[in-house]
């Protein structure tokens, strides 16, 4: 591993810490002014770092690299490690955090300073989840992300802010209990919580002395992470949390936090640990298909912009989990790509909802109408994001959904693949309703003077739409690259 890469790897955890220190040590007035720009710098540097490490890994021909944050470790220690998947995720985190900070510019009045602190902690927590290779450390960083996001949701503390945060807190506490219970059982079986060791221990789990305990462990872990990722039966808290969070926070929350805390962990589990535990995958697939269909159906009659996006997230997370639970390489790649795409277009949609909230003061779609003329950039980016979510071809969402469906088809569950694909008709349904009520329909009398929201919000929605369209058009090149890497 070249020295340069060594240093860059450290920045993932080091830089946000530096930003926090910087933010708090500077004088109050200076801090107030520059705190948002600090956040943007952190996000952009992280994106650059991810790309740099990706390039150097590809150049060196390695697929992963281990490193320790402070000093070198003995054997069997819980170290950080980086591979293509986690780099992709780190890039997404950087992207969403930058978008979050760009939208924060206009939405958070005097709360910018606290927002920056908490966001940096959140960034650290998420980076930790991406980098860690030990189940218990994963749990620790999970908790850090959880706490940071509770507090951010209740940043502006008027009525529903607290209520949403409280629900998220209670459900996360339950999830914590489940995860810890599950870890304990796994720890009993494998003696160590390293991904590799646990996977080895579970290879012949049917013949272990107490298979019942192991099954209980699987179930607990699965349920814990399902609650964190908002899969259908456990999704209660998600819509309330997204709706009550302030605009910038909901951008970060919807864009990446739930996915990191729940979905990425599940992907890691299915990819690394529960590879040869078919029970886990089958149940996960069932949960996935349920949340795809019911998430989309539930979104159809919502009346609040952000609440629709919340249910849409549940549905799209279902697709990611469906891809992961197929167990085939194509499925995992499809899930990863859909993770990235979902991060992109969901953030675009949340940024749009923020823009609408800034311009009109409300996210109630019944009160809005005909904003396409007055807010062209928001309108066009919301259309692109909607088409990508519904999986309409030229855009990115289609390709990743196609890979997932092909993987599901190849691994034999034909009916579920067909149902999942047809479920995107419900996605189209609620987004068409959204478009009709907010952008495409006739103008509403009270909104004549609304103007387009300029500055950070506009910039981020344009950039994210460009990524969605670019990814969609350049997908063949990506396919060839993956074939080069021998992954397909």
């Amino acid at each position, binding site marked *: 591993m070249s020295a340069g890469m060594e240093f860059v790897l450290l920045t993932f955890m080091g830089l946000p810490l530096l930003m926090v220190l910087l933010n708090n040590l500077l004088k109050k007035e200076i801090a107030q002014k520059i705190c948002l720009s600090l956040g943007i710098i952190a996000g952009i540097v992280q994106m650059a770092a991810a790309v740099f490490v990706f390039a150097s890994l590809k150049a060196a021909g390695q697929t992963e690299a281990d490193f320790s944050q402070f000093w070198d470790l003995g054997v069997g220690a819980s170290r950080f490690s980086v591979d293509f998947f986690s780099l992709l995720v780190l890039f997404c985190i950087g992207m969403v955090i930058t978008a979050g900070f760009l939208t924060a510019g206009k939405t958070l009045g005097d709360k910018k300073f606290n927002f920056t602190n908490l966001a940096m902690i959140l960034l650290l927590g998420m980076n930790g989840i991406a980098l860690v290779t030990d189940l218990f450390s994963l749990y620790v960083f999970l908790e850090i992300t959880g706490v940071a996001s509770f507090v951010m949701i209740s940043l502006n503390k008027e009525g529903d802010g607290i*209520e949403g945060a*409280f*629900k998220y807190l*209670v*459900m996360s506490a*339950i999830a914590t209990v*489940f995860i810890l219970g599950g870890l304990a059982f796994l720890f009993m079986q494998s003696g160590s919580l390293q991904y590799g060791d646990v996977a080895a221990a579970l290879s012949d789990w049917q013949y272990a002395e107490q*298979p019942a305990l192991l*099954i209980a462990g*699987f*179930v607990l872990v*699965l*349920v814990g992470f*399902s*609650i964190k990722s908002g899969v259908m*039966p*456990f*999704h*209660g*808290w998600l*819509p*309330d949390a997204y709706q009550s969070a302030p605009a910038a926070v909901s951008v970060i929350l919807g864009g990446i936090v739930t996915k990191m805390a729940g979905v990425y962990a599940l992907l890691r589990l299915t990819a690394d640990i529960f590879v040869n535990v078919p*029970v886990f995958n*089958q*149940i996960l697939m*069932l949960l996935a298909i349920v949340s795809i269909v*019911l998430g989309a*159906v*539930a*979104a*159809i*009659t*919502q009346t609040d912009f952000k609440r629709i996006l919340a249910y849409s997230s549940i549905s799209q997370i279902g697709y990611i989990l469906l891809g992961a639970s197929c167990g085939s390489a194509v499925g995992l790649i499809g899930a990863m790509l859909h993770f990235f795409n979902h991060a992109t277009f969901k953030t675009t949609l949340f940024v749009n909802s923020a823009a609408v909230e800034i311009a009109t003061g409300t996210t109630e779609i019944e009160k809005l109408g005909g904003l396409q003329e007055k807010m062209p950039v928001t309108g066009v980016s919301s259309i692109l994001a909607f088409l990508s979510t519904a999986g309409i071809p030229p855009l990115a969402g289609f390709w990743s959904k196609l890979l997932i469906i092909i993987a599901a088809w190849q691994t034999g569950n034909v009916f579920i693949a067909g149902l999942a694909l047809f479920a995107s008709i*419900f996605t189209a*349904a609620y987004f068409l309703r959204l478009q009709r009520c907010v952008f495409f329909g006739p103008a509403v009398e009270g909104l004549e003077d609304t103007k387009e929201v300029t500055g950070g919000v506009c910039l981020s929605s344009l950039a994210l739409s460009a990524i969605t369209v670019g990814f969609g058009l350049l997908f063949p090149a990506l396919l060839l690259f993956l074939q080069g890497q021998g992954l397909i």
Partner: protein
Amino acid sequence: MGAMFGNMAAFMTGGSGVNLLWLMVVLPVALAVLAVAIPRHAFAARSACFLAATLADLLLAIALFIAKEGSMLLRWTDFEINLAFRVDPFSGAVLLALGIFAVLVAIYSVAFLRRKEKYGQFYCYYLLTLAMANGAVLADNLVVLLFFWEGLMVTLFGMLLIGDRQKPATAVKALVLNGIADLLLMLGVAATAAHAGTFMMEGISQLPIEGLGVLGFVCMMAGAVGKAGAMPFHSWIPDAADAAPLPFMAILPAAFEKILGIYLLVRITFQFYQMVPGSVMSIVVMAIGAITIVLANSMALIQKDIKRLLSYSTISQVGYMILGIGTALPVGIIGGLFHLINHVMYKCCLFLTAGSVEKQTGSTDMRYISGLGKLMPVTTVCFLTAALSISGVPPFSGFFSKELVFDAALESGMIFYIAAVLGAFLTAASFLKLGHAAYFGPLRLPEGVKTEDVKEVPGAMLLPMGILALGCLIFGVFNALPLSVIQPIAGEGYDFSGWPDNWTLVAISCAVLLLAVGNHLFGYRRTGEGLKAADHIRYAPALRTVYDCAEKRYFDPYDIIMQLIKGFAWICYGIDRAINWVYDVFAVDFVSGLSSRLRLMNNGSVGRYMAWSFLGVGFIVLLCLFLV
């Protein structure tokens, strides 16, 4: 356009017989375009061009009639559907007839339309109709026949619209009825081609009528009968009599459509299919003929307007031709064809006389005009010869052709002979009424028309009437001349010229004529008016209700068809709205109902979320027990 002119140039230099065929169709079309191109006010130039076109067509027809043989083939599509023309003795004769009548009516219509404003359009449609008719007769490929056959509908629609654009009902009626007949013909053509295996007409001969052949025969026969104007496709002709300009009535319903319809009927029954005398199919055809004779004639009897009476009698005379051909006996076919030629002559003449009456008095309604004999002597003479000929009075042509049909009908079945004789009686009675009321009763003119300006029509109108009247006489006395042309069509060695040899038939028909005269005198003495001579039949106890219903159009097939179509349309509209309801109302409610039930799942209380989570865990544990 390049390909078309290229072909034409190539054929101009080709064999003599070949380019004539192509010219028969292209020349009238070219001159029709020219006629419209000439500026509106140059009436003389347009009429000259118009007449020249008809004359040229006549000359070409004569040339082809003499040439006897000739064919032409041009590529259209690859499935044997090619532009193929062929002339043989039969189609040569028909072409000649078309040409003659076209010229006569052309001369008449030039005079008739002098001050009408849309005469240019009339000329164009007239020539296009001529071209289409030539094309249909010359066609040697079933699809080409269909092409020109349906093309006539366009010009028919156009001509009917010239009359009165405000009341398009007649044009619609004509197009719908002809449309249905032509679509049946299309089905028949497809079935015949499938049955025979080829579209080329000379490749199809004596097909057995079973399986697909039945469908083919019935549908093509329906198409031919529809064009000829027999039941059940007849009801547009009487309405057209009021709407369209009169020369239209003389040329299309009276001449061209009859000729084409019967030409195709003969082709079907005689060449394409093997219709055995006495078989089911021949009985069906004869039945259609008989019904048409009786019903149309009885309607003709009660008409008050000259043109309507003539159009009903036209429909009835077609019945004779169909009856004759339906017998599938040589005498019947020759009789039918001879009757066709005679009928076209005297019907054209009758329409032209009605035209001259209309030109002078402005109306053809017998309730307002009568006793014109003294004012229009030549017209009256022409009317008289044509009326006698149509009634079947011996020296005239009508008598001889009717005798042949009577002979064939008697041979095929008594019921058909009785129908034919009843028809003869009714025809004679209606023309006696017409003659007496219009020409020989006391002089009466519609108000505003003074006697001095009702004088004889100009020479140009009288000439065609005179020629036709003379023709009726000549073809009667020297009937060997037309028969020599017709007889070879039915096969060798038949000679029915001269006086009919079956004396009993002649006696019966003379008796029927006398009976008709007696009935007319009885009616006249009873009512004192020529017009009401037939009222005793009109208001006879049983017939009164039937006649009233017919007056109010209950039996009009067009109205029946339109009612059926309207009913069917409303059923379909109901189905369509039901399917639309499924999309707009049912699907939306179902999904939003499901969705709002899901919304209840998280109504904000944390307890409910926890309950759902634990429920989920329980479900997963159950699943595990089941799966592992």
